[in-house]
């Protein structure tokens, strides 16, 4: 029997996809397990990404195509790892695949969504709009297959889809499925979640109108987002003319995320360019402790800093309140360079919330984690990307390539006591 290297990749975001494609192209067999109904993870939710500030779907599409054309890659969406047993070279993994209620006959014609009577909060857009309970996660989603959200499609709601579908693609009797596989090694690419901004009770998220998070800002700016890319504030649709970015919203804070999330300074600088390009008269205020733009990203910081309408204020925002007689927001900080407390009134506030590793809220059984929820390496188990450390997309790609080498090595040397 030819000894093929078999690798499980947990997570189908940028790190997981890179791992899968790189490993498969060396001849390894790869199984990707993704919790969402689509691949691409957090990157698929971005408007633009570093280093070239292009829309991330072009980058993702290249990977999707490599997956489609490579027989060595199998993937399961809406699936999670239930258990891991055994050891390097001989891992037994149980995967639970949840029902999509839509089979491979789906041609993404949208008939089910049109017919569907129920709506659900659109989690792809962080709840800023709704979608039908029968939905395609976003226009370029891969796989291009609809999903029925059973939590919002109850009773005979599903029957409307069934009647509308001409391709026999709706299967309301689908059940959760357990899939058992054997692999030589495991790469944990479980990624991250935006830190829950409600946990900072002084920053007003959820109580003060027009306070959003940086990931919401990505969706708000994206052409396939809830506003078609128009940066307007949620409460009344007013085009945003003044915006405040609150850095370290949760990061570098022992009560929240006791580490620097690496990307938030760059994200805010990037989002500053979104608003400045869209509204030429707009003003942006960035409140920071330290601006951290590692390596060559420093140049991007210089570029944004040159803009006369961008103010960088050294001092952390620690109080956010609603203006008394408008939907405007007041942010309060000490401008440390003048040494005075200031209150700045803006149309909208973006909290630069940090990266909480997925392991903080959802641990894969059999994978080890540190106290903050970052995944740790074990024998034949290799964490990569933001599951093990906050990092940007480019570094995630590099890191994934490193994980591929380790995973292949673990498979090659099985049975040799290594």
């Amino acid at each position: 029997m030819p000894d093929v290297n078999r690798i499980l990749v947990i997570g189908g975001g940028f790190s997981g996809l890179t791992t899968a494609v790189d490993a498969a192209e060396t001849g390894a067999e790869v199984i990707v397990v993704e919790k969402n109904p689509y691949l691409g993870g957090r990157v698929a939710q971005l408007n633009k990404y570093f280093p070239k500030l292009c829309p991330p779907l072009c980058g993702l599409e290249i990977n999707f195509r490599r997956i489609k054309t490579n027989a060595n890659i199998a993937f399961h969406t809406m699936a999670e790892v239930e258990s891991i047993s055994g050891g390097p070279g001989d891992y037994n993994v149980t995967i639970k695949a949840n029902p999509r209620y839509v089979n491979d006959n789906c041609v993404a014609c949208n008939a089910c969504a049109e017919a569907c009577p129920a709506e659900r909060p659109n989690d792809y857009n962080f709840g800023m709009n709704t979608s039908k309970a029968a939905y395609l996660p976003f226009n370029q989603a891969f796989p291009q297959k609809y999903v029925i959200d059973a939590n919002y499609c109850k009773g005979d709601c599903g029957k409307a889809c069934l009647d509308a579908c001409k391709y026999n693609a709706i299967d309301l009797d689908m059940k959760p499925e357990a899939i058992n596989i054997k692999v030589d090694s495991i790469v944990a690419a479980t990624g991250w979640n935006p830190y829950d901004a409600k946990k900072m009770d002084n920053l007003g998220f959820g109580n003060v109108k027009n306070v959003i998070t940086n990931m919401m800002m990505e969706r708000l700016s994206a052409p396939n987002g809830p506003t078609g890319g128009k940066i307007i504030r949620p409460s009344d649709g007013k085009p945003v003319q003044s915006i405040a970015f609150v850095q370290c919203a949760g990061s570098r804070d022992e009560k929240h995320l006791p580490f620097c999330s690496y990307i938030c300074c760059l994200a805010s600088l990037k989002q500053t360019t979104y608003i400045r390009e869209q509204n030429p008269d707009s003003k942006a205020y960035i409140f920071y402790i330290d601006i951290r733009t590692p390596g060559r990203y420093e140049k991007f910081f210089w570029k944004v800093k040159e803009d006369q309408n961008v103010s960088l204020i050294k001092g952390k925002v620690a109080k956010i309140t609603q203006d008394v007689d408008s939907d405007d927001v007041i942010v309060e900080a000490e401008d440390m360079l003048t040494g005075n407390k200031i209150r700045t009134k803006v149309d909208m506030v973006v909290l630069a919330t940090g990266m909480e590793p997925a392991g903080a809220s959802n641990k894969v059984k059999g994978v080890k984690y540190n106290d903050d929820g970052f995944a740790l390496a074990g024998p034949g188990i290799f964490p990569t990307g933001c599951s093990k450390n906050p990092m940007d997309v480019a570094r995630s790609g590099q890191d994934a390539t490193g994980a591929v080498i380790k995973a292949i090595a673990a498979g090659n040397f099985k049975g040799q006591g290594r």
Partner: protein
Amino acid sequence: MAEKVISPDLKFVKEVIASGGGDLKKCYQCSTCTVVCNVTPDTKPFPRKEMLYAQWGMKDKLISNPDIWLCHQCSDCTAYCPRGAKPGEVLGAVRKVSIKHYSPTPLASMVGDPKFLLILLAIPVLLFLSYIVPKGYLDFSAIPRGENGAIVYAKFMPVFPNIDVTFGAAALFAVVCFAVGIMKYWKEMTVNAGLTKWGMAAKGNIFETIYKTIVEIMAHKRFQKCNVTKARSTSHLMVFYAFIGLAITTTWAIVYLYGHEFLSIPKIGIFNFGESPYPLYDPMKLLGNASALALLIGITLVILNRMKNASKAGIGSYFDWLFLFVVFMIMATGIFSEVFRLLNIAGLAYPTYFTHLVFVFFLFAYAPFSKMAHMVYRATAMVFAKHVQREEQS
């Protein structure tokens, strides 16, 4: 660019750290503390700059600054500090060092240091023993009784000269120490304000400013701006008014005793001019007992609040707890002295009363060096801040 040389006072940094500011060095100057602080002025707010001064050992800038006392240790800063640097506790430690700096005797170092506690207690113990041992009063049966064999503390420890001369001298000592301290503090604040320029020209009548400050203190307006330790404004208010009640009681008792002694004022109705003990219905006695009870409840609440808020606000230092302990002991022994006297249990009454006197002496004589001094320095700082318009006259 003008060169500015900062010479850090490392001894001062170490002292602040040892006095309860142990997490000082964790501060990374994000200024969350100044923003969540509801009692700071908007211009040159605290405590972020104080954290920097303390880290760099800039003692002069810190302790000759009214801001360290404008802080009421709400601990909102400590609760929100992302680094656990506990600015509220650091400023508490700085205040302790400041009290020591302005108090002119070696006692200042001793009160804040647990290893001198026994010596400090031994002073009043030996003093009071010297009054009773020669009379053989260690044998309680030798102590003369009042009518119907009632316990009369004045026969155990005569009000004059033993009590009044001792406490009069202790109080006078405290007043002199305080006067020297606040004069020095005021002078240094003036110099410092001139240097840092935020002391715009002093305006208005100083007496009016003092009056306004007293009104503000009486209402505890600043305490009520605290969030995390909001409940503290009530317990502190209770302690505050109980102390005022007890001060009035004490003065009243002096009037009773010496009014009778020197002016021969007789008992008038319910007003029992003359020697103690006074009957429970006497208004002076009523006020005293009510104040004592209020103080006991107040100080207990202060202690409970501190323990309840410890995880958010910090537990406090030896300096804080010594003060709370002394006040608590005064009240507990005071109330039990009265109870045991009324129950006529000599074996408990005399030792309890003796302990009571020891702790009252502790509070009075060591006031300028203990946390009790906060009332004098904080009031001075508040007057100064108003005077130089550090904060708007309200």
